[in-house]
């Protein structure tokens, strides 16, 4: 009899096995390994990449761009949300801009930015542009969602300044901010890699994906894609853990 607490892990392994089998069957049926390689070909390509120093160099540079884009987007999202909350004129200016950024196709931004700033900073700016509206909208909603009952308690007992922020606003802000931060980092990975591919950025995973496609090296393309998926999942998990730590620290 298997212990019940192992069920989620067993289910996870079975699910992975199911999807890998389906991939293998499809790849073998199609027999187009330059576009759609088998699982074993992809694994082999990934192992080969792992032995190359240039692979780590590309991963490190892409990682740096994603993180930079995320931090910049996060900072601007927060700044704009606070400005919009505090001033109606600022809100009138910032809110439509954020809505436009959110709705504009990523590729359009990449093409325009590429012409102005060159290929290297494009993934950073794109990452920031994807994260900023997400953080802005969530934080702005949190700032406007006041707990009127506790506001009155603050008024009665003269809880002001930092104490009011810490006990009244911060818990509300974090409950909105933490989930959007976790989804923001995933979004940032996707958008930044797409920007690297289109802008053909030097020393990047995106450029390698582009070259793999150009030279019909399907196994390499899949191997790099899997690398991005793993990195994105790892960072989403890390952000989630960081959020839990902050929540624990703030005792929410």
């Amino acid at each position: 009899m298997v212990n019940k607490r192992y069920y989620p892990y067993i289910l996870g392994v079975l699910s992975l096995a199911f999807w890998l089998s389906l991939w293998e069957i499809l790849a073998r049926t199609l027999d187009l390994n330059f576009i759609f390689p088998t699982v074993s070909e992809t694994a082999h390509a990934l192992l080969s990449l792992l032995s190359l120093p240039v692979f780590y160099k590309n991963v490190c540079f892409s990682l740096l761009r994603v993180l930079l884009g995320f931090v910049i987007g996060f900072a601007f999202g927060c700044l704009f949300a606070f400005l919009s909350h505090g001033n109606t004129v600022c809100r009138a200016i910032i809110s439509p801009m954020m809505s436009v950024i959110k709705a504009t196709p990523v590729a359009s931004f990449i093409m325009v930015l590429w012409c102005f700033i060159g290929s290297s900073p494009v993934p950073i700016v794109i990452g920031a542009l994807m994260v900023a509206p997400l953080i802005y909208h969530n934080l702005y909603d949190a700032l406007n969602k006041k707990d009127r009952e506790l506001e009155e308690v603050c008024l009665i007992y003269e809880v002001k300044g930092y104490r009011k922020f810490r006990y009244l606003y911060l818990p509300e802000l974090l409950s909105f901010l933490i989930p959007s931060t976790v989804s923001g980092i995933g979004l940032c990975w996707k958008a930044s890699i797409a920007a690297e591919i289109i802008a053909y950025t030097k020393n990047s995973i995106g450029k390698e994906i582009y070259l793999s496609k150009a030279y019909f090296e399907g196994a390499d393309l899949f191997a790099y894609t899997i690398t991005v998926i793993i990195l994105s999942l790892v960072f989403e998990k890390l952000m989630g853990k960081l959020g839990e730590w902050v929540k624990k620290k703030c005792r929410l």
Partner: protein
Amino acid sequence: MPLIIKNLTKSFGDKKVFENFSYTFSEKGLFVLVGNSGRGKTTLLRIIAGLDKDFSGEITKQKAAYAFQEYRLFPSLNALENITRILWEKPKKSEIENAKKLLESFNFTQADTLLFPNELSGGMKQRVALCRAFLSNQGVLLLDEPFKELDADLRAKLCDLIEKESKKRLIIMTAHSLDMLSNLDHTIVSLEN
């Protein structure tokens, strides 16, 4: 300084709750607002506390502590902190001890004082809210249905505390039943007419 209300008129839409209501509360003592539901007991407390400013008439401004009917505890603070961190910017050891003692006198164990609002029962939350109001040094103490969730033993304890405090400051409270107040020196303020 007595708390004077002059010609208070307050309405919610078409419904007039107070029309030219005047009353003078003395500086100390216990005043009990009585009246059926919707007569404006809580509204009057809110007006005195300065939380409702949409009225006409005059009222002397005084700082008031308020134990709300809905307890209103901060979810990120435990029972003890809901008193100490809210009442004082940097609570002193003696103030924390006083808060602990008062909570313990209301049947809180040492461990209970560290529980968060989501871990407290309705009655426990009410006791925390009451302790917070009693420990504040505001000149007026407003208690909205303070006996609501308390059992007989705790009601008796609260009565003792009210009696003691009413000798030092003005207490205005609302109550549906006056049974438990029979042993207390109090003035009834009827809002029926």
